[in-house]
């Protein structure tokens, strides 16, 4: 009896040693990967880091913390709306009186990204169509205003519907052929479209002034009163974001929104229930890119300058990351995700150089440990081929 226990102890000790050796081997392998780029010393540091990391992870696995992270349930925000929303609204309305200009600027940018995230969430989150070229529609909105304003002197308010509908039209024109394609192909076509738009902006010198971009775009006027000051511009963006959230929430719970979610859940089932899937997918594309157009005009009016640099593939990925971080298919999640991803880099100014590196690692870790995002997406979200 006693002997067998001792044997067992011996065995478990052996096992521990074996596990440790395995970790050492893994860490050595990983450290070697860093050797050519960072030199011997860094590889040594990596070895120690990775070894500790592996041990910590294995401990975490034993304590089931990872499962706990996955299972954290954030209650549906909508349930607290009678309390949260008025508080949030009052707080946001009061912000310009409290904050410095720099922070107001950051918050205006996050408002613009919230619009983008809301728009992309309609396409990717509600309808399940992966779009990797969303920045193209943002660019179309921004450039439409830039060109209309600088070439023919059209004002902000007249350009607003034009910009938005140009972006929506581009979305529709891309969607008509592209929707015949299945999941990944659609993703790659939208990506290609994004690249084509950027290349055109870069090369059509007579219209877009090429890589130098367009300068001297004017800020909006409201009844003869300039909204050039940041505080006023903040309220403009604020009102538009509120409007967008209300409209999108209404559409989401309407017949159209339900059709979108049905298509995402199961396209074949949806079409056999009598949903015209092509039609609703077109709606989603058009409606989603419409908001990108509005975000675009707000962006170019705020910066008073546009250049193709602002509308790269990374921009599309950033917007996608926002809705994934927040919880795909969740309107509030999109807002939270956009807010975090705009604010975080500003807070991490000291480590400016590393922020893209962190974003990359963050995306991988998010997918592994909490694929449903912070708020948690709509149940049963998954992509079908």
């Amino acid at each position, binding site marked *: 009896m006693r002997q067998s226990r001792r044997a067992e102890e011996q065995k478990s000790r052996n096992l521990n040693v074996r596990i440790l050796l395995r970790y050492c081997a893994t860490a050595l392998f990983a450290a070697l990967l860093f050797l050519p780029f960072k030199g011997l010393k860094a590889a040594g540091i990596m070895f120690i880091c990775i070894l500790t990391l592996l041990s910590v992870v294995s401990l975490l696995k034993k304590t089931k913390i990872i499962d706990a992270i996955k299972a954290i349930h954030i209650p549906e925000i909508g349930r607290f709306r009678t309390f949260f929303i008025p508080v949030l609204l009052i707080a946001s309305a009061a912000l310009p009186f409290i904050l410095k200009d720099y922070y107001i600027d950051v918050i205006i940018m996050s408002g613009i990204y919230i619009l983008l995230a809301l728009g992309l969430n309609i396409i990717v989150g509600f309808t399940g169509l992966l779009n990797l070229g969303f920045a193209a529609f943002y660019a179309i909105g921004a450039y439409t205003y830039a060109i209309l304003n600088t070439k023919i002197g059209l004002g902000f308010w007249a350009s607003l519907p034009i910009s938005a509908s140009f972006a929506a039209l581009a979305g529709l024109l891309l969607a008509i052929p592209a929707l015949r394609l299945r999941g990944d192909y659609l993703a790659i076509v939208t990506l290609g*479209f994004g690249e084509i738009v950027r290349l055109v902006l870069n090369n059509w010198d007579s219209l877009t002034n090429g890589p130098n971009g367009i300068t001297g775009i004017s800020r909006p006027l409201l009844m003869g009163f300039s909204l050039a000051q940041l505080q006023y511009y903040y309220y403009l963006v604020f009102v538009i974001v509120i409007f967008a959230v209300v409209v999108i929430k209404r559409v989401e719970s309407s017949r159209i929104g339900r059709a979108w979610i049905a298509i995402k859940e199961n396209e074949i089932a949806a079409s056999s229930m009598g949903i015209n899937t092509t039609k609703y997918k077109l709606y989603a594309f058009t409606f989603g890119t419409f908001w990108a157009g509005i975000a675009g005009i707000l962006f170019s009016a705020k910066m008073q300058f546009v250049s193709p640099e602002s509308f790269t593939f990374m921009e599309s990925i950033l917007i996608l990351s926002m809705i994934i971080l927040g919880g795909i298919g969740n309107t509030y999640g999109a807002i939270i995700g956009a807010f975090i991803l705009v604010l975080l880099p500003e807070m991490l100014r000291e480590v400016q150089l590393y922020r893209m590196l962190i974003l990359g*690692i963050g995306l991988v870790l998010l997918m592994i440990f909490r694929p449903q995002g912070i708020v948690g997406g709509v149940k049963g979200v998954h992509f079908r081929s």
Partner: protein
Amino acid sequence: MLLQQLINGLTLGGVYAIIAIGYTMVYGILELINFAHGEIYMLGAYLAIIFLGLFTAMGLTAASLPLALILTTILTIIFCSAYGFTMEKVAYKPLRNAPRLSPLISAIGVSIFLQNYVMLTQGATDKVFPQRFGEAGFQFMNVNVTYLQAMIILVSGLLMLFLHLFIHKTRMGKAMRATAQDKTMAALVGINVDSIISVTFIIGAGLAAVAGIMVASYYGLVNYFIGYIAGIKAFTAAVLGGIGNIPGAMLGGIILGLVESTGAAYISSEYKDAYAFIILIVILLIKPSGILGKTTEEKV
């Protein structure tokens, strides 16, 4: 003139084709667009420069250039394969049964990470390949072909041939084809699916490494973002030929290279990068499954 462009296009196409094979193999087995594959190619180009620089500093290049080049190639392939292997284990394997979007986002994350990692460690400026091969070459039907071009065309052709033989004549290749058809069924007949997936990533990364070395020596300059655009074009090539289909990837790559170099010469070189996407969109509209791909019915 046209023939000259064809040779240039073939050189470019060979490179695209061998990168595209990596995409198509991974897609065939995991149905995953491995966004980070282009970065492996970029790492290959950088590694070649680092190793060759090291050998030059050691005096090996002066002693024997071929030996230095061969050692560089071998080391680069080994390291890139290790990167490919690690990438799969770290970023994709935990997501094997996750919803489709998850591994794709994870792949984008890996791609962003690798790009920025190289930028931070190697600097954001262009790196120069330490060895210039010059314009030396031979005449072929009144067209100048540099030795380097001939080498690239030859090497990519040989690699494709070997890969084809590997897939169709060896036991491992058979196991790969089985896994691509049906993972569960393959596992049931005793194929170790995990190791097949690892091998796929290793082969794909090795091929990308060769492409990286060839491009670094051909253009003489590399930058940390070359992986993105080359990756996208190679993926386009894979889709063009029919994704999941290895001969399709080869064909797609060569077509893409030819279109790009003739388009740049005869239409406009400013839109060089756009041609790939335009052909992609056109092909997908005419034949969504690609040139050699089979149409698959969607199952309920």
